[in-house]
């Protein structure tokens, strides 16, 4: 949810009002972010990002080299090459395209390249389906990427710009994926406010600045890039004597992500008057709530609407939107959930033979508390199945009954599926 600040540095009237969809919002954000290389391949529902961006390129509105690659695998490979050469690089995809990138997702993260990827979330095949769920994003959760999920079109714009700032922060140096729900956000028009170009440039500090590192064969710190003045080797063979330590560097970098995401969220708030919770979690009416539902992405809007309605009816319900899924905010989320009677965890995806991925995380988060809420996993919306307010309300009713009973009989429930 967007909270207004009284005196943002750029007042709303100085921010351009545009009616655009989520994909176009991402394209505008990339256009303003001084991106050097965009490599992408078309896949629904991401296509509009690339189409819109191609227009900017065709009209000479950006300096960006657009590489219309022959596959998503090559899209990710090309942005790895570009980022290693010192460029600010962006790509976008969805579903099967993201699955095809999978091998290189790990390489991008392990080479510590601050690439930004927009994912217009879509169900994975088979059967082939072009509509929204989070199974594509859940598939990359272990790859070493920071994963942010947005709720609306305004946030898609804001978060895409923030993602470059987060990725390139020297405490982080990890690639960032911005997830926006396919069609629900990618193709839905919304009135949003855009910053002036130069304000975005200023926010990002201009073109990408490559960090310097100490390498034992140079006397001075050298730029971490493919640089003919100070040659480095990227992506060497790395066996049992060093690989593990290099993985630990990624573990440590992930630990530093939350503070950076919070800082960037705060800076954005000062600048624009918009913030998304603390940047990591967006709680709503949780303080005295008996029932709390957690959710990712655009469904949060519907859940908030239902919470509002049930609160009016005097029911103690609340919601937490998880904006950052990787690294997962275990401790922060546990603090928000621990005093509830029942927590409903909504997952728009499932790990077959197990539960929804965010349910597993939340179990882990709460395990160490002696007093903890009952947990229920609601898998919903697979393949774009609608989750209307009535369905969300039904879920809350069930959870209220669970709270009364004080016991959960069926931990894994499927919301909105025909019996």
């Amino acid at each position: 949810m967007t909270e207004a600040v009284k005196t943002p540095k750029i007042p709303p009237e100085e921010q351009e009002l545009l009616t655009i969809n989520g994909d176009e919002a991402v394209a505008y954000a990339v256009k303003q972010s001084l991106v050097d290389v965009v490599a992408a391949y078309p896949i629904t529902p991401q296509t509009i990002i690339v189409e819109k961006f191609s227009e900017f390129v065709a009209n000479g509105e950006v300096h960006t080299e657009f590489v219309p690659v022959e596959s998503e695998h090559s899209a990710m490979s090309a942005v790895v090459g570009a980022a290693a050469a010192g460029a600010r690089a962006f790509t976008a995809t969805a579903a099967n395209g993201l699955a095809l990138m999978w091998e290189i997702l790990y390489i991008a993260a392990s080479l510590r390249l601050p690439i930004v990827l927009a994912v217009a979330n879509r169900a994975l095949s088979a059967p082939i389906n072009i509509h929204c769920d989070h199974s594509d994003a859940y598939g990359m959760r272990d790859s070493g990427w920071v994963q942010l999920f947005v709720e609306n079109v305004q946030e898609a714009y804001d978060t895409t710009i923030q993602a470059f700032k987060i990725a390139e922060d020297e405490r982080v140096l990890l690639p960032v994926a911005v997830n926006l729900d396919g069609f629900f956000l990618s193709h839905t028009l919304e009135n949003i406010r855009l910053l002036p170009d130069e304000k975005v440039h200023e926010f990002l500090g201009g073109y990408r600045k490559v960090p310097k590192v100490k390498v034992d064969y140079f006397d001075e710190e050298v730029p971490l890039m493919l640089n003919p003045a100070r040659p480095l080797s990227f992506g060497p063979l790395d066996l049992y004597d060093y690989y593990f330590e290099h993985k630990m560097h990624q573990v440590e970098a992930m630990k530093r992500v939350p503070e950076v995401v919070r800082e960037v969220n705060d800076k954005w708030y000062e600048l624009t008057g918009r913030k998304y919770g603390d940047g990591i979690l967006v709680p709503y009416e949780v303080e005295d709530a008996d029932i709390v539902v957690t959710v990712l992405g655009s469904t949060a809007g519907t859940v908030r609407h239902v919470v509002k309605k049930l609160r009016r009816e005097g029911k103690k319900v609340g919601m937490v939107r998880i904006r950052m899924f990787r690294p997962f905010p275990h401790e922060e989320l546990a603090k928000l959930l621990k005093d509830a009677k029942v927590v409903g965890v909504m997952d728009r995806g499932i790990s077959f033979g197990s539960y929804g991925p965010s349910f597993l995380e939340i179990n882990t988060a709460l395990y160490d508390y002696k007093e903890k809420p009952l947990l229920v996993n609601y898998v919903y919306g697979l393949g774009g199945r609608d989750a209307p307010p009535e369905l969300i309300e039904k879920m809350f009713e069930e959870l209220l009954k669970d709270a009364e009973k004080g016991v959960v009989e069926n931990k894994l429930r499927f919301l909105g599926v025909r019996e």
Partner: protein
Amino acid sequence: MPAQTLPQIPIKKGEPAYKLWIFEPGWKGELPLILNLRQMAEQKRPAILPGHRLCAGCAAPIIVKLASFAFRGPTIVVNATGCLEVATTIFPYTSWAVPWIHNAFENSAATASGVESAIKAFKKTGRLQWDHVDVVVFAGDGGTFDIGLQSLSGAAERGHDFLYILYDNEAYMNTGIQRSGGTPKYAWTTTSPVGTVLPGKTQNKKPIADIMVAHRIPYVATATPAHWLDFIKKVRKGIEVNGPAFIHALSSCDRGWRHDTSLTIEISRRAVDTCYFPLWEWTPKTGYLLTDRSLAIARNPKLKQPIEKFLEIQGRFRHLLKPENRHLLRELQEYVDSVWEDLLNRAANAPR
């Protein structure tokens, strides 16, 4: 523009030859193309440094070394997964004197596309600190004929400015000699073994260089490390053209081909002498042009050697020399002859 040299070149006598290539920002000019062997030995430093872990007798480092003698200035090397990659960069060591990146097996051309695009973006915005930065890819046959073909074809179609050098050792040598699209017919490999029913690989080698010609990119050529002068000239041409260039270099592998480590260059020479691996170059303007020894053979067909001369010193073809397999040998000779005849018909400089 007058030719210039790296700051440390020429090498002083007694100075180690394994310094990094440093091109300070603002460095201008072009490294000279030296074609005199003595001067080359005295003045050129390879981009691949001593101490790498490639096998004794491997042709790959010779190919890289010769190619780097033709680099014209700041150069970034992209390397596909393979023998060359694993044996030159075991962390924390590297054998590369130039900026080098390995991404994965099948995507070296896509990676090079990204590197080249970054260079273009820097140039456009006044952030490139040199007049030009060249991109050269080294990839093996598995990463080119097979798993990397899509990425290579896509990059060629998009017209990125880089030179792709295929070092073709005709099988997946890094994983232990498995057959690839580059393995010739009847060659033994661990996945095309010679059995009681099958005589090694039963399919012909994919005509990769002709596939690249069909893309009508600015420059395509074949080369071997034995014909070093021809190779160096071709590398320089490949770097100088605007757009993608492709060089198919035959790279013998003593482990996989089963030959003595001292025969690497001899085998490369015989591959050309028998017309198993003809030397040529192609540009959209000139079409096919035979070069070096292959041009000599075209002019004087008596120089052409029978295919046995190439096979007899390699264990992978041992079974072909047995009397009961004479028909296979004949078939192979006929295939080599037909490909050679076809090339003679296409080559603009072949005698009519």
